[in-house]
């Protein structure tokens, strides 16, 4: 696997492991897979104020199964989004609301989650994680330690960390 330039290591990122940028699981929205879509929407609405836009989904043993974000939920609410081109989207708000089927809300979120194809270790270097996020076009990535999910790292936190270090090194 190719790594980004080692130059960055000299600009303050040399000792940075990903654990330092971690949002602990205790602070991050998460749910069991049997929670309903409605509960997930409620959770995401409350979590939005804290800057979180994704729900992690676990099984009863706290084994991570996947994630659910606003994008996926909107697709569930109005499946037409997937097929329509921008100029054909209804401009009427009620069309959207009415199309949200009650039965969909009561469905467990396990039906809608996206699995994580990869996780990183808590001791992985920040640049390695940045690389993986870019490679796989991810916004967040779970971080584990000793087999347990410790939390997640967000793309924009890594962005700020890296670009912040660059700006500081140029002064």
């Amino acid at each position, binding site marked *: 696997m190719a790594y980004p330039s080692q130059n960055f290591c000299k600009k303050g990122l040399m000792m940075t492991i990903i654990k330092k940028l971690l949002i602990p699981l*205790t602070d991050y929205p998460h749910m069991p897979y*049997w929670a309903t879509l409605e509960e997930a929407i*409620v959770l995401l609405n*409350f*979590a939005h104020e804290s800057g979180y836009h994704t729900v992690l989904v676990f099984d*009863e*043993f*706290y084994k991570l199964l996947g994630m659910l974000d606003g994008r996926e939920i909107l697709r569930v609410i109005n499946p037409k989004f997937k097929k329509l081109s921008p100029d054909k989207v209804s401009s009427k708000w009620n069309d959207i609301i009415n199309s949200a089927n009650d039965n969909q809300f009561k469905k467990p979120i396990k039906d809608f989650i996206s699995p994580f194809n990869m996780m990183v270790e808590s001791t992985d270097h920040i640049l390695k994680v940045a690389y993986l996020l870019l490679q796989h076009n991810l916004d967040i990535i779970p971080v584990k330690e000793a087999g347990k999910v410790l939390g997640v790292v967000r793309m924009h936190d890594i962005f700020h960390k890296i670009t912040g270090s660059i700006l500081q090194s140029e002064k």
Partner: protein
Amino acid sequence: MRRLLNIFRRKVAAPQPVSDDGQMFKERYSYFKKLLSENNAVLEIMADMEEKLSGEYIFDMNYVRTSCNKLVDSVQNIIVNLDKLSKGKYPVLYFAFARINSKIEATLINKIEIPVTDFAIPFESVTKEMVNSVGGKNANLGEIKNRVGLPVPDGFCISAYAFKKFIEYNKLKNKIILNSTDMGDIEGLNKISKEAHNLIMESQIPPDIETGILNAFSELFRKASSKVSEPTASVRSSAIYEDAEFTFAGQYKTALNVTSDKLIEQYKKVIASLFTSRAMFYYKTKGFEEDDMVMAVGVVEMIDARASGIMYSRDPNNAENDSIIINAVWGLGKYAVDGTVSPNIYVVSRDKPGTILEKTTPAQEVMLKCDSRDGAVEVEVPEEKRATSCLTDDQIKFLADYALVLEKHYDRPQDIEWALDENNNFFILQTRPLNILKEQPAKNIQTITKGHKILINKGQVACKGVGAGKVFFVNREEDLEKFPEGAVLVAKHTSTGFVTVMNKTSAIIADVGSPTGHMATLAREYKIPTLLNTVIAMKTLEADKEITVDAINGNIYEGRIDELVEAGKMDNPFKDTAVFRVLRELLNNIAPLNLIHPESEKFSQEYCETFHDITRFAHEVSMKEMFKIVDSPDISKREAVKLEVKIPLEIYIIDLGGGIKSDSKKITPEHILSIPMNALLKGMMAIEWPGPPPINVKGFMSVIASTAMQPHSEKLLWEPSFAIISGEYMNFNIRLGYHIQTIEAYAGDNINDNYARFLFRGGGASVDRRTRRTRLIKQILEMMDFNVKRTGDVLDASITKYDKSTVLKKLGILAHMTAYTKQLDMTLFNDAMVDWYFKEFIKKHYVK
């Protein structure tokens, strides 16, 4: 301590040897059940005793004693059963019990000590401190003679010790049984009274007592032999408690003009009068017991009075009315006190000594005089005396001075009996405390009575107050047997026998009688509104017609005037009796509750000061002890039966008796007989459970590596749940997800037994999320009126004393909540989520 424990141990059968876990649970449950049952018994007895203090009931010492005995037994049983249930965790309760019990016993044991004395004691050596030797009346006469210096006829006392020896000599104690007598059963009272009277009259006075009495009689008249040809005496009751705080006015016999040959027979008659039905009623309703019924007798030189009567050193109906009241009749005083004739009444000022404020001198046609041989005889009052005053103004003033002297000596108002001999010498025959009505009824009642028809507007108030009821005429003593509850007693003459219906009557009216008579004294003691001297009541009133007796203004109205009755309401008369005081004192060691809040530091065995405290404490900790039994390390599937039920729980049941139908190793909900378990299961089966079904050990082991945030909590996931049940009881330890939850309930027909308790702890999520879940559960429980204590993620909630159906309904909601909150901690990202879930729960699952 060992002795104390041994006493207690004798109270319950030794437990059977524990053969297995199920047997152990059954035993503990049986202790718990017994404790609950005794707890109820204690609460009921206490409530009954407290209700008696309301004053609306008549009761006697037998009731008090029986209630206390039951209470002591039940509290002992509570302690013993708790001891077994908790395996000896609360030894201090034994000491608390012993301490309280000794106080109760001290209150109950208050027997009279009868001193050993001579059988006959001359008045010259008697003072008021000698009540237990000579009785109240004699003690007062001795006091007046020897310490006050007022004239008292010569005489001697036949001592209480003589009475005691007489009872022992004839073995009467075991023959006269009064304890079980019902005071409301006048017919029964009369029967017992007659039997007791006959027993005494058939008994023999021990020879040494007889000799002592006759010698004293001879000695008395040896001194007086110059005065009279054939000496005679009055033989008068002087019971131990007579003429003290309780007057016993007119309850006992007095024999007049008794010669020596009839002295012994009359002595027995006076003793027998202890057991007249009216005297027994008085004794019992005033709180005395059989052992208190001790009769000394006074033998007093007979004064063949020219005039005699009663004198009150104050107006008993109006303490603020500063006057002395004297009544007087021609002849012997019996007619002044029994209401046979209407006496002269003189009201003398206390403020301005010697000022006669009022004189009433109704004509007196007959009088009682000493017969020439023995006894007394009614004779006509000589024509010239009939309408004249019995006393001159000077005599009235002289006598009034005696009243002030006696009141000063005794330091309280006095009710005095006096006689004037043919030589115009006054004698004091008796003095006793005068009952003054403390609280006067409302005076502004005239306005209430506008528009109501007055039937009679004359009469003298003997006891202030207002009463209403149907007219019931009493012509003979036997009529009292049929006296209806709440009626107004109407009679021609007053009678001390009326006392036997004073617990039933609303008011008393008599056409003849005096406010200073015996019956009036009793009416004031029992606070019965009483109008006397109404003259025309027997003629004017109609049987069974409702009337209102205004014994404040002296009017009798047609019909019932509720406002007037309310305005003239009296304090309950029985509240001043000895039995009330005893009960009140006992309840001080029984009823107050000092252990109120179980979470308080002082909610401990060391702080139990009353039986109520012990009961409350034992009930609380017994529930805790039972609550813990499913946590017992001894519990295993071995003794349990698996319940096949379509909910994601693996449930094993241990039946303590009456909880399940079948002996099979697998049962379904249809086999469950336990009332609370059924309610809970029904609720659990009615809701859709979130999450997966319970997994088996194999499944668990395959995923254990990826497990939860809380170390050591994983094992809970695969542990089965145990329920220990009986017909009315359930203790269900639910292993659900990563938390432990116990629901315990008792749902029976007695509301005092019923309770539900809910304990919750643990969870798989981080501590802040677990805490949020307990907050959510707390909100739900509080909405259900549970008393909830929460510490972090541990929650303890309970309700007690709800009726069965309410407990079952709450169990149904608890079942829904159990499913609803299963592993919900994972989701509770912030407090806003808690609030949202709470509202959702109410919307979907809460039915008021």
